[in-house]
């Protein structure tokens, strides 16, 4: 395991323990009580039947012996009940704990993500990235459920029962505890070593296999007509075969460690049982006590049998911890000192409205093919309108992302990229202030899974109903919104009202209208909207656009342009 992985595991463990130590303690105590109740139930039952067997025989032989059979009887009933209730309470309590922990971690993680630049997870994260994130988050509760709580419970049980045995035979207790701790430490370290290596390998191979499968599917048009499917799927099968080999090795390793673990524990039990019987023979204690000691040991060993199963997740957990650590720790914190120093020397100028001038120049940008052919540069003043026309694949959207500060300017020596607003160059520290006076409609429709109202008022809770209706009027959605059963409270997204592409587009546009920024950057604003509707919306927008600075990006000169030629403002056209 690398130092980095160990550090991130430590980081999350400290985070988890420091989060709500009292509740964690209570959850662990509940688990401990449950475990001890189960063992005590068996111990007391064993003691009770052997004691009554001896007493019964004595009574039959005519010897007067006293044994209270009712007190142990109620003890047995008590433990039976406390084990059952304890188990239920423990499961409920700890699951509640884990769910609140996840809620807490999500909040932390989101706060961390907010402070990261978009380059770290691309403009819109892929579903694959998102599902990995969820899986990683879920893996973190392993720290609590599979590592912290079971280890503490197992250790405490061993110590408590060791002390109990020591009460009757200290030497035996000493050796038993020593053996058990040694066996468990050895097993845990073997399992950790095995799973750290293999988890990384399996995760890596599965990723490779997924990539190859995607490639295979994308190539079907080419492969099938050539009859070359078998030829290409060989790589895919090779990777999966390798994955199977690693998994087989992991399984065999776990099986062997579990075997060794169980054999050693079994030998310990047999040794302890025979010692206890020998103790009876020697008259150290009577028979029922021997049974008591044997069952105590059987109880601990049963609990310790699951040590390999708990630590098998170790590798996956550290792997997840490492990835999440990178996301959750904001880079600002790390280089805080350096930045403060830099800020003191050269204070960053924030961009304040009103905007006078925006200038952009890009050349040789790998994601903007148009800039490779010939540098792109333009300057627009406060109420200018600029139309950028470029075919798909020319890098329009990347240009939009650059201008909106969503994509980091690349640090390639061959690439030149500069955005200057009000004579202030744009960089990480003043991007936020720039984005405040910016309204960017990107090509993807970002509809949050929430109500229509929440979608429209994103980031602007103070917006009033009248303004919302006015904005909906502009995008011609007011009648639609009023016709919805719950109107503005209608739920949008996967589990709610299904939107057409055009409706989603217009909601995103309305959101920007409500923000009413001075600088507008609209990338194909009428995608999915039919041309007559587009023309009407354009007409509605015109008065509102009058005092705004607009950059409009289209793949061809829009049809509505001619319709609204009577507009007063001149439009510059840039073809890329």
């Amino acid at each position, binding site marked *: 395991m690398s130092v980095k992985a160990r550090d991130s595991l430590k980081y999350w463990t400290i985070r988890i323990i420091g989060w709500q130590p009292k509740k964690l303690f209570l959850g662990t105590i509940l688990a401990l009580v449950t475990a001890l109740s189960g063992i005590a139930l068996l111990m007391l039952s064993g003691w009770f039947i052997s004691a009554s067997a001896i007493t019964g025989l004595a009574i039959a032989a005519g010897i007067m012996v006293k044994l209270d059979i009712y007190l142990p009887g109620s003890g047995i009933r008590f433990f039976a009940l406390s084990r059952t209730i304890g188990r239920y309470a423990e499961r409920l309590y700890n699951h509640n704990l884990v769910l609140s922990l996840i809620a807490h971690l999500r909040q932390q993680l989101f706060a961390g993500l907010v402070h990261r630049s978009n380059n770290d997870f691309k403009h819109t994260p892929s579903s694959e990235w998102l599902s990995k994130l969820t899986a990683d988050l879920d893996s973190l509760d392993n720290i609590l459920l599979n590592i912290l709580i079971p280890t503490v419970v197992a250790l405490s049980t061993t110590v408590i029962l060791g002390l109990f045995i020591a009460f009757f035979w200290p030497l035996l207790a000493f050796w038993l505890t020593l053996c058990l701790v040694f066996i468990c430490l050895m097993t845990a370290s073997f399992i950790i070593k095995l799973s750290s290596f293999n988890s990384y390998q399996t995760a890596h191979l599965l990723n490779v296999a997924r990539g190859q499968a995607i490639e295979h599917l994308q190539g079907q048009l080419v492969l099938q007509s050539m009859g070359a499917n078998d030829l290409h799927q060989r790589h895919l099968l090779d990777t999966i075969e390798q994955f199977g080999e690693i998994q087989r090795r992991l399984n065999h390793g776990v099986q062997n460690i579990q075997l060794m673990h169980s054999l050693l524990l079994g030998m310990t039990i047999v040794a302890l049982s025979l010692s206890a019987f020998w103790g009876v023979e020697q008259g150290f204690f009577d028979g029922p006590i021997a*049974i008591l000691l044997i069952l105590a040991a059987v109880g601990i060993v049963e609990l310790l049998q699951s040590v390999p199963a708990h630590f098998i997740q170790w590798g996956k957990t550290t792997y997840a911890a490492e990835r999440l650590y990178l996301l959750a720790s904001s880079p600002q914190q790390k280089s805080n000192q350096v930045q403060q120093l830099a800020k003191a020397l050269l204070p960053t100028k924030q961009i304040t409205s009103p905007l006078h001038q925006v200038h952009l120049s890009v050349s040789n940008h790998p994601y903007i093919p148009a800039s490779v052919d010939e540098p792109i540069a333009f300057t627009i003043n406060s109420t200018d309108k600029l139309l950028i026309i470029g075919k798909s694949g020319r890098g329009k959207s990347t240009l939009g992302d650059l201008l909106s500060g969503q994509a980091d300017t690349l640090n390639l020596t061959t690439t030149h990229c500069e955005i200057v607003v009000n004579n202030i160059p744009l960089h990480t520290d003043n991007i936020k202030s720039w984005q405040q006076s910016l309204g960017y409609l990107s090509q993807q429709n970002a509809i949050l899974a929430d109500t229509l109202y929440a979608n429209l008022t994103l980031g602007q809770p103070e917006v009033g109903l009248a303004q919302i209706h006015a904005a909906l009027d502009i995008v011609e959605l007011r009648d639609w919104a009023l016709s919805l059963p719950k109107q503005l409270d209608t739920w949008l997204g996967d589990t709610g009202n299904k939107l057409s592409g055009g409706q989603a587009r217009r909601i995103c546009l309305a959101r920007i209208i409500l923000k009413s920024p001075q600088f507008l950057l609209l990338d194909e604003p009428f995608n999915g909207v039919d041309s007559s509707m587009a023309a009407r919306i354009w007409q509605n927008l015109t008065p509102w656009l009058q005092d705004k600075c607009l950059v409009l990006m289209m793949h061809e000169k829009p049809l509505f342009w001619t319709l609204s030629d009577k507009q007063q403002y001149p439009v510059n056209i840039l073809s890329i």
Partner: protein
Amino acid sequence: MVKRVKTQTNSRPASGLEFLRSLAKQQSKKLRMSVLFGLLSTVVMISQWLSLAYLAHQIIIQHQSLDKNWPASLILLSSVLLRPIFLKFKNNYAQTASWLIRQHIRSLVLEHWKISSPLMSHHHSPAAAASQWVEEVEAMDGYFSQYWPQQMLAVLAPLLIIIPVFYLNWLCGMLLLISAPLIPLFMILVGLGAESVNQKYFVMRQRLAGHFLDRVKHLSTIKLFNAHQPEINDIKQKSDDYRKVIMQTLKIAFLSSTVLEFFTSVAIASVAIYIGFSLFGAITWGPSTELSLFSGFAILLLAPEFFQPLRNLSQFYHDRASALAASNNLVNLFKISYKSTNRLTGKTEEQGAVPPAYFHYQTPEQGLALVDLVIGHQHALQTPLNLTLQLGDIVSVSGPSGCGKSTLLNTLAGYLSPINGQLFIPTFDVHRPQIAYLPQQAWLIQGSVLNNIVLFNPAIDEEELNTVLQAVNLLEDIKQRDLGLSTEISEDGLGFSGGQSQRIALLRLMMAPTALIIMDEPTASLDTQNRQRVIEQIQKLAQNAIIVVATHDHDIFNIANHHVVLKAPLDATKGSKNVG
């Protein structure tokens, strides 16, 4: 392997559960071995507790010495040591079976991809289909390696355990036997209760569960609108709401495991009290007088073991749920393939349908012929097409968007069957027909430039390669790179322009010649210089092939010697009349 694949596809599983069962049947030998070793471990477990109880009786009641009882001690030791060995074999058989089954499922899916037309829906979201192939199949592991053997053991192991208990004391045996069917009954009741609560909160739960991912997905928008602070608080709030909803269900769902816990505890307690009282002499009726410490202690030790297999099964129950979900998805995937299969690869016989009557393969010298070909999906898009071409011909296909250019190309490639008419396709080997298809966006594989070029013909030698590279002016481009032909093409194609990618794809075709080459807009999105080079390469390819190219490019019209100009599509009603 192939044979098994065929029998599988013929039997057509109707439901996910049925599919899982049929898969388990294939590896039934290994799975049964796993169950067998599980039962063997139960047997040695019984002997372990019996010998311990026997020792206790001999030493505590009979006051015998330990030395005299070495056979029982030896049995105890060997049972304790044999049990983990048997369990290892049990796991090993089940895990091997699970791996073989997963490999088999994967080959079934690959086979399905091969025979289903690339125009099918699952090819449009390759990422989802790929993760089905990788992750979903992986999610079925637990079902075969854990759940399946355990569901057998949950029935068989308690039956084994009850035998010695009955022998020792029939009353205790009866007690356990009566409680056994009660457990599943209670668990089903609890399950139903949990399900109804679950249903009640279904939509709410779904919304809350997806909340966090949704916000992460839209993080850039949230940042743009400066709404991250309220969203951070909202995430905490919604996650807490989610916790509350989930806990409502869990409160009931956990009762299920509590039922098991309850029965185990009650069984131990009542057995202990009954045995204790009997041994004390407080109970004198029934078989209690025959109890000894041996039988009493043995029953006490066996009672929790009686419930253990069922408790293990309930632990693995979620493996069943995830396997079933994955299996249902697979069954749905396979269902699609029965409806439409790729005509070219001739896999239609599996459907029991007639072999494709539209496609005929002939030698390259006989050329390409379209005879009264009517193309379209459900309705004819064009009036019947007739065309005859010879080797060396280049035919351009053009027309307004929606006129059926891609439909024609896909029909020629065999990905779509025509509505009517005949197609005569030239190929070098009639028994192993090959048609080259060049999509608009060049399809490059991850790997080196060389890997890409020799993809369809790995036997090519370097000298030959250099000659061809020289011929198409790619040699210079490639030599400029530090690693030359070994330069890796990364996932996003960074470092290679669209033109270079297209030319590499064309080069691949030159390395593995076919008689018919189909191209879809090969020069769209290319600049003038690259376009010129691609056109030169197309002309070289045409020397020994027939090229059908859909295009808007005038430079390509100029090199083509045939032109098919498709008209605006026929309307649907008229089209269907045409078919009739």
